[in-house]
């Protein structure tokens, strides 16, 4: 699947839900399914500091593909980064850098989140691209 196919799939899934409580449930579920991030990778360097919650992001590169590991003390934040991981994990650094992540706007998430959380979304996306740059 291309990045944009993966994005469409995600949007379709989210649109299955009538209300935001269910959407949150789904996003939280995505977070729970994230591959576990070893404690020793949750360092200060890996930390993306939000307002009330914290996210750790680790990126590695093998066989031309980016691998992302992430965790958060907030399950909703974890779900949010899981959205990005699902789209970008396994892609080449160049694809990650080039990826149009505006699908996030189509989810309506930003309007539904505390501005600090919406901000965190942009921060996460930027951070993932930055990591890709390191490996490109």
């Amino acid at each position: 699947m291309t990045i944009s196919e993966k994005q469409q799939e995600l949007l379709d899934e989210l649109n299955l839900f009538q209300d935001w409580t269910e959407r949150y449930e789904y996003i939280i579920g995505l977070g729970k399914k994230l591959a576990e991030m070893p404690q020793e990778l949750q360092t200060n360097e890996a930390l993306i500091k939000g307002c009330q919650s914290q996210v750790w992001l680790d990126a590695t590169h093998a066989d031309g593909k980016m691998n992302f590991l992430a965790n958060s003390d907030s399950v909703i934040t974890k779900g949010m980064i899981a959205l990005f991981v699902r789209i970008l994990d396994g892609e080449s650094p160049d694809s990650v850098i080039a990826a149009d992540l505006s699908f996030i706007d189509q989810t309506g998430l930003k309007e539904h989140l505390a501005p600090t959380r919406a901000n965190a979304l942009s921060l996460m996306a930027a951070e993932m691209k930055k990591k890709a740059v390191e490996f490109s």
Partner: protein
Amino acid sequence: MSDFDPARIRDDFPILGQEVHGKPLVYLDNAATTQKPEQVLKVSQEYYSSLNANIHRGVHHLSQLATAAHEDARRTVATHLNAHRPEEIIFTSGTTDSINLVTNILSRSGKISSGDEIIISGLEHHSNTVPWQMLCEQVGAQLRIIPVLENGTLDLDAFENLLSSKTKVVSVNHVSNAFGTVNNVIHICSQAKAAGAITVIDGAQSIPHQVIDLQLLDCDFYAFSGHKVYAPTGVGILYGRYDLLAELPPWRGGGEMIKEVTFDHTTYNDPPYKYEAGTPNIEGGIALAAAFDYVNNIGINAINAHETRLIQYASESLSTLPGITLYGPENRVGAISFNFDGVHHFDMGTLLDQMGLALRTGHHCCQPLMARFGITGTLRASFAAYNTIEEIDLLTAGLNRALDMLR
């Protein structure tokens, strides 16, 4: 109490009829700010549509009306607090401004110097912490902290041990915004006075919920914000004992606070004007008085009884939830703070918001207190006269639903 009817009170607050995310709004963030009744908003509107003018020294009619309304408001506040005289009431822009006024005039007074000590508590809001840290840095004094016990109350034995001839100021909140703890400020003030210290009470969370009798409290300063007691944002009060106000130096310089200005020498006005430089929030002061009229019309004791019932009911309902920790002592005022094992308060707050439930999450501007309990924050439900038992049931149901999602 029998004729106290929150439904009737809610009619005065049209904002409460709103829907949020398609759900009826349940506003439980009153410790952050209360909503404003139409009676208060009407006074603000009327001020601007019939008497707005700059006050003092005005020879014309509107200015005289505005001045009279402003000074009437001061008297209303003085009466509400049982101050000794209206001149002890200083209009400020809020609690934070009031406390900074105190720390700055003390800093300039020469009354506190290197080696002296200031006592605050581990329960304080940042607004009653940071200004004292700044003062200590300026004059070389030491900050001493009354420790917080496991049940969220102050360790008063430790307080007694902290008190000494070096103690120049004791500043504590009356009610903790984070936990709803009520401090025994009469006891604290009398002990502090006996040690020769100046006493400062942060009343931001007591003024909305109970009778405040400053002659009984016998503190030197008492600070609060209008916006937490049904009045608009941008206005607050500092009560100060008159003889102290007369003796201490001014803070902000400008119009009104002077007697006479020459480039060589400026003499200052008498209290309270000495501390009210520039055009005050004239409308805000008048609206604050209207808010007190509103409260007195319902009866602060009736409000207190109702809120006590709400908090007790909330404590009981919440205790039944799995994995909950309630902070603070049993007899909370205004607010109840809690966490769930393995659940981030921010996540819980986010989901509650989706259900129309407005709570506050985080450190509540009390980071040292959070650190004391090894947490980054809590969920806090806080109450006003218009909250209802039904809303607490909605909260409990919402928490249950969210717990299912988050665990």
